[in-house]
């Protein structure tokens, strides 16, 4: 059928002729067509199946090829991607390893520096062995010095105490010698301390020779000086301030010549004054005593207006009545009208006392006895 068509188709120029040819061959054609279509119909299934098979296989191949192709592409991509990731990871690892290496290095160097620094710092500031040694040596030196000074101090204190004790004993013995001065030995009779059987007199004898007898005045002065400030209810010993002693004279060269002993001369020169009572009273003691008396009287007086004689007292002054008697309730009669209770039945005579005395002529003439002839007006 196909060949017929192509033959038919090919005869283009002779198309009309061709078309006539075709029209004639139509029933043959129809039979051919019927046979071929029956032929075809018989083999349609198997051919269909075969075609399907072939096509499926071919499609499969195509797809597989496509898939293979895709796979290959995928492999390429993934290869590339994994390589990229791997390299990235590697670079990271490399970086960290490098970083770690650097840090280790830094750490080690830092450790070296810190080692040196800590050693230096602790050895210099926290626990400086040499300074500590020097300090301890200084402490022991200082201790020695302090010990020595304290020893000296204690020794001086001891010496002072001993000296004081000694002086006190000496003073006591001297005082005793002064009290017992009468036991001194004389030409005729040897004293108690100067026994003839002794090779040399007792030291007390020498003291007695030097001693001056005690006088009573010195004893009194001594008593006044003992002040009792300690608690008198329970105290058993009195306690006195130490007496200040006069300084000894400066040692000079002894002056030449038979001079008297300087101590004696000084005693005589600076003998305390013992004046008589007449010399002791001051020259104006009388006036002073009078003044004193006047002052005492002035002190004891109630007011200073002296009492004037009755005649002249009322000449210039008005009488000041008492406030009590010049009250608004009227003057009370006491003090003006009457001064005392009056019991008329007891009177001896009819008259009361005279309240105003008559003037005494003798006194009126006081100060007026002489004439006024010589007075200057």
């Amino acid at each position: 059928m196909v060949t017929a068509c192509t033959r038919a188709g090919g005869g283009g120029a002779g198309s009309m002729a061709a078309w006539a040819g075709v029209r004639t061959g139509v029933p043959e054609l129809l039979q051919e067509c019927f046979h071929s279509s029956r032929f075809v119909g018989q083999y349609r299934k198997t051919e269909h199946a075969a075609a399907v098979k072939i096509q499926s296989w071919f499609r499969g191949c195509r797809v597989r090829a496509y898939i293979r192709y895709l796979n290959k592409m995928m492999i390429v991509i993934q290869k590339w991607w994994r390589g990229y990731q791997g390299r990235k990871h590697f670079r990271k690892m490399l970086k960290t390893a490098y970083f770690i290496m650097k840090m280790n290095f830094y750490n080690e160097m830092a450790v070296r520096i810190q080692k040196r620094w800590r050693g230096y710092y602790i050895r210099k500031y926290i626990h400086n062995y040499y300074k500590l040694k020097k300090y301890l040596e200084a402490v022991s030196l200082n201790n020695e010095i302090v010990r020595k000074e304290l020893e000296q101090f204690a020794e001086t204190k001891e010496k002072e105490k001993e000296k004081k004790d000694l002086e006190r004993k000496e003073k006591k013995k001297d005082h005793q010698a002064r009290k017992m001065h009468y036991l001194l030995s004389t030409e005729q009779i040897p004293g108690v301390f100067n026994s003839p059987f002794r090779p040399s007199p007792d030291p007390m004898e020498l003291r007695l020779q030097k001693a001056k007898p005690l006088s009573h005045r010195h004893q009194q002065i001594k008593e006044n000086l003992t002040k009792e400030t300690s608690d008198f209810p329970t105290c058993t010993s009195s306690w006195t301030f130490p007496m200040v002693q006069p300084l000894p004279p400066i040692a000079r060269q002894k002056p030449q010549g038979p001079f008297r002993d300087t101590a004696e001369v000084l005693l005589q020169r600076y003998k305390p004054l013992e004046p008589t009572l007449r010399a002791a009273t001051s020259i104006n003691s009388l006036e002073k005593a009078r003044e004193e008396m006047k002052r005492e009287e002035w002190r004891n007086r109630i007011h200073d207006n002296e009492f004037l004689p009755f005649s002249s007292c009322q000449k210039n002054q008005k009488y000041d009545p008492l406030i009590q008697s010049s009250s608004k309730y009227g003057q009370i009669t006491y003090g003006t009208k009457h001064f005392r209770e009056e019991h008329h039945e007891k009177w001896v005579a009819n008259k009361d006392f005279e309240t105003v005395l008559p003037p005494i002529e003798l006194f009126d003439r006081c100060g007026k006895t002489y004439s006024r002839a010589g007075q200057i007006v």
Partner: protein
Amino acid sequence: MSQRQVLQGVMSLLRPLLLDVVPTIQQTAALALGRLANYNDDLAEAVVKGDILPQLVYSLAEQNRFYKKAAAFVLRAVGKHSPQLAQAIVDCGALDTLVICLEDFDPGVKEAAAWALGYIARHNSELSQAVVDAGAVPLLVLCILEPEIALKRIAASALSDISKHSPELAQTVVDAGAIAHLAQMILNPDAKLKRQVLSALSQIAKHSVDLAEMVVEAEIFPVVLTCLKDSDEYVKKNAATLIREIAKHTPELSQLIVNAGGIAAVIDCIGNCKGNVRLPGIMMLGYVAAHSENLAMAVIISKGVPQLSICLSEEQEDHIKAAAAWALGQIGRHTPEHARAIAVINVLPVLLSLYMETESSEDLQVKAKKALKNILQKCTYLPALEPLLHDAPPNILKYVIGQFSKVLPHDSKARRLFVTSGGLKKVQEIKAEPGSLLQEYINTINNCYPEEIVRYYSPGYSEALLERVENYQPVL
């Protein structure tokens, strides 16, 4: 009992005499009451119960100075026996009148009033507070400045009694300006005054660091060290107490004392005294050494350790020995150098014997044990440790063995000496529980030596050898 009744009858006879017209009779009656109350606390109670105090207080304000002295004497005599009687005196209002007496011109009256106030304040802090509230402290400080020595003494003693109870009271005394005046009086030659002044300063300084610093700022060092050389025992004791109270607060204060040469002075003072007078000096050394190792080393080079060991052996009283043991422990516990300084003078066996003795008091035993433990934990001086191996009880022995186990592995000469002196033998004889610390130490020591020596010295070795001899079959 009848004697007491008689005396109480006397009290009721004396009471009306206090109200007599003649002043001399009043004064003498008051004096008699005072002397009776002074003697016995029953009589003092009778004085209080007989209502005599209000009359005394009332007339104290008015009468002349002799009566005032006698009345203040009665108050003092009553107040000194017990806190209850002192409280009775405070309750009847005597404090204000006594403070008024402190302002009197006569020094005898002031002294009697200050003495009475001091005795009242002595008992406890409430009474002290009452005395302070009455305004006595500034007047007492003025009394200290007076020229009479007896008045100064009594005023200083009263201030000391007031300030000893609490920091607030001490601060009140300091605020009145007492420290400067007290510090000046340290140089006074009178011994009893120095006692009281030093006691007052130490009572002030003991409460806190600030107060101690204020006392130090008054420039008492190095003058106080001369007081340590005084001939009076109690002046020395009080001076040592003052230095101890200052040293115990901080390392800086102790450093100050060391720099002023205080340690040498205190050590000399300990050497010169005997008995209780030594105690504050010993405690001072302990406190100084406790602060730091440098200070402990300073104590060692000032030759403190031989002196302390002499105290430990010489003294009879247990509390002084306990103090000396404690001080040695404080010195030796810092470093091996310190422990060596203590071990060298052979004081460790003494400490051990004090710990072991059954007659020692408990306090002494505890302190000796602690000191021994502290020193042993740092001691590397083996010749001193050896005697302890033989005598010590197990709880001390483990420290000794511990020290050996630390030193022996490193020192071959010491190992040799250990064997020859019989130490290894002793170690083998010790029975210790397996797994305990002691056993570990023993193992460490045994590991320092070859096996043969250890076996040789183990107990029962001679028997084992002889058994081997018995079982031996000679080869013919």
